[in-house]
């Protein structure tokens, strides 16, 4: 082993630095006519700018808002298009003109500037240390350490009131709050299942095998007008899909034999991954695919995950029919719907093979 200093970097120049390359003259440097031509071109570009700006103002005021342009695949409002064209060209010409001026007419002899040392000189450093020491000396903190310590503590603790101020940013999701919000939906005994948007009740007898209905709880209809904000919150949890499948071609676990009505099953529409509404239905395989991240659930098997990043089965809503034959809920979902969260007890979710 060698004891000599290891060389980390070798700086050897086998070819000597020839110095900055010779200046190559441009056409505009040697030919006055060429330079004049470029000058005219640049002046023309700058000269077009006022014209384009006037055009912009004319387009702004004169063009009818409903007029459109149809040209080479472009179908757009005429005002938008012409204003943009005029403004874009005007701005662009300023830029192109300026760059051409620099490129073709301004002095293009490369110049060399020396770099200065970034680090301070030893003397400066010494002086800086001395200044700092003098300041420390003046403050007397060397002898009275308690002042410094208490000041640091005082400054640090000031962060506490500042941070506490933010505690009201939202309600605290303690167990009670969670039960009242993310662990509950508006589904309850006897709530009618109605079609999304139109709020029509759904007759069990009228559904056909393979059919899928996007549905909502009937109680949302009123809420849409009375409390739109709460309506959005509830809709984000209560949205469901109803599917009718051949009861002989699906797997219904013992614990869920009375959850469906003759092959009509109801699931949460909210993906257990990050909460997109799921709606791509593969009729033959009974698979439901989320268009956001492609988690796929088997609705013929209690909503278990068959593909994709979702981990939890799609919660199933137990349903029955009322006296008139309309679909109603038996109760709320047994497990929280939507994406997982830390405090979620995920031991009760259905897993493939559960009875």
């Amino acid at each position, binding site marked *: 082993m060698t004891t000599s200093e290891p060389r980390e*970097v070798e700086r050897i120049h086998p070819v000597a630095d020839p110095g900055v390359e010779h200046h190559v003259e441009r056409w505009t440097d040697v030919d006055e006519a060429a330079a004049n031509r470029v000058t005219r071109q640049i002046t023309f570009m700058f000269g077009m700018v006022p014209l384009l700006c006037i055009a912009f103002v004319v387009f702004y005021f004169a063009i009818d808002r409903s007029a459109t342009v149809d040209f080479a695949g472009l179908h757009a*409002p005429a005002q938008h298009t012409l204003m943009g064209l005029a403004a874009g060209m005007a701005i662009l010409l300023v830029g192109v003109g300026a760059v051409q001026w620099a490129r073709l007419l301004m002095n293009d002899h490369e110049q060399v500037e020396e770099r200065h040392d970034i680090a301070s000189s030893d003397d400066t450093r010494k002086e800086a240390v001395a200044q700092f020491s003098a300041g420390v000396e003046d403050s007397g903190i060397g002898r009275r350490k308690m002042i410094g310590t208490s000041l640091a503590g005082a400054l640090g603790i000031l962060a506490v009131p500042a941070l506490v101020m933010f505690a009201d940013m939202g309600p605290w999701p303690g167990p009670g709050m969670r039960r009242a919000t993310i662990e509950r939906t508006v589904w309850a005994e006897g709530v009618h299942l109605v079609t999304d948007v139109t709020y029509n009740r759904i007759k069990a007898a009228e559904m056909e095998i393979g059919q899928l209905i996007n549905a909502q709880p009937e109680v949302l209809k009123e809420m849409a007008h009375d409390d739109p904000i709460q309506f959005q919150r509830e809709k984000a949890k209560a949205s469901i899909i109803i599917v009718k499948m051949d009861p002989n071609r699906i797997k219904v676990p013992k614990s869920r034999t009375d959850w469906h009505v003759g092959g009509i099953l109801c699931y949460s529409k909210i993906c257990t991954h990050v909460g997109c509404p799921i709606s791509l239905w593969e009729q033959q395989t009974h698979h439901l695919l989320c268009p956001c991240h492609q988690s796929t659930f088997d609705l013929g098997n209690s909503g278990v995950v068959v593909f994709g990043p979702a981990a939890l089965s799609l919660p199933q809503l137990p349903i029955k029919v009322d006296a008139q034959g309309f679909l109603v809920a038996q109760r709320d979902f047994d497990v929280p719907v939507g994406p997982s969260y830390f405090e979620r007890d995920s031991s009760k979710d259905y897993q493939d093979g559960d009875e």
Partner: protein
Amino acid sequence: MAKPTTVTTESPVLETTTPAAKPPLAKAGGVAGWLDERVGLGGLTKFGLRKIFPDHWSFLLGEIALYSFIILLLTGIFLTIWFKPSMAEIEYMGSYQLLRGVPMSEAYASTLALSFDVRGGLLVRQIHHWAAMLFVGAATAHMLRVFFTGAFRKPRELNWLIGVGLLSISLIAGFSGYSLPDDLLSGTGLRFVDGLIRSIPIIGTWAEFFVFGGEFPGSMVISRLYMLHILLVPGLLLALIGGHLTMLVFHKHTQFPGPGRTEKNVVGYPLFPVYMAKAGGFFFIVFGVTVLMGTFMQINPVWMYGPYNPAEVTAGSQPDWYMGWVEGAIRIIPNWESHIAGTTWSWNVFLPGVGLMGLLLTALGAWPFIEAWITGDRDEHHLLDRPRNAPTRTALGVAGMTMYGLFWLGGGNDIIATTFDLSLNNVTYFLRGAVFIGPVIAFLVTRRICASLQRADRNRVLHGSETGVIVRTGDGRYYEDHVPISEDEAYTLTQHPAYPALEPSATHDAAGVAIRPKVTRRRSKIRNWFVKADQPKPTAAEIEEAHSHGDHGDQKAIEAGDKKALTH
């Protein structure tokens, strides 16, 4: 015969003289003097006005980012005049017929008003969105340029860290911006963020309730994002950009190696007038192009998506491009989730969402320090590396880009599947493996390419440039004539520093007392791996020898030399 007249070409009588030109600014008086007496303008001018900047197209990438940011500020101000960051539900009664009577948030309604009822509103909205795409894109490209040329090395490590901060904040800027219109697509993005925040272990639910002011979607999130988007984030960006540019001026710009370029100088053109015209003009070019993009290229047509409805989503929903890789990771990760003692740990969301972004930013931030530790290089670097001369760094960078690109493809796995008639599941399974195998292949290939390019440089220096002229000698042999390359080029190809392999240094001194080794066993190992692909630079003797043989046209020597060079 008459004597011919003498012809003279000069005549003092005919010589024209011009009066000495008056300098444009004879002395600092007037406004300049007034300012000098108040803010010391003279000193500032003397310091900065003729500062030299080097020229290279890749130095414009950062400029594009800066200019897009200015465009974003300008267009953003316009948009705030009409946009209402409110989630209050109203019935739309504006001029877009297809949505009349539809209940929607004020945010969405005012976005529609901007697009249809405010003259030029659609134009400015589209310019703003395009500029945002360009901003993140140019910043990313600029960062890659800085990485691959080693511009992050001492003394610019802090500026690199500011750059990493800028990039991460620009992602927040972009996301908070495209969430504001409260259309179906942006609401879907927010729903995703809600799931992402929820997945954070221990504090997730609390963070969700604090961000959204309770349950998703609530009534607060748009106005909060608005504050973030128009105040906090641009403020931070402005401050960081200010620091970034101040440090740039203080350090002076790096330059590519070339004749006359050294670690101690900077060769280029003065700020005034050349760069004021070039850079100033370039601002207008970027702005002009962005305006034309906003005019002719439709972006984010929110009226086609409809208002946000938590029960609806469109197939093919995707975030803006810079979030695509996170989206991809979220899509292709296996569904890992742990259930421990009544709690749920959503690795399937947390790892790709929060973890991956953290990993990338940490890796980027740490790299200058890791590389300095590996190479032991404590010198200042103002001459850039040609990427081939740092093969391992370049290969790591390309590996990172490959991984990013594959994750990014994952963000469109459904589109890929439908466009190319592939199985969505197979695309996903393939990407699960490819994101790990792809980067390894990219690393190995890139490092070999770099080594080959180094050898090619070496051959060029030793044997010159191929002429394309085949010469037949008197005895019937054929060879291709080479001409020596210019001194300028030869210098450029050989000036880079070399990092020889290092043995671990002694752990005990001569007296057998344990000392701290200067090169530990581990560092020696990593360093030697790092410099493994480096090809030896031609020495002055080798160049001399090759040239003297070349002068005699002795082709055998050249061929022998070729072989020698290739076996290294």
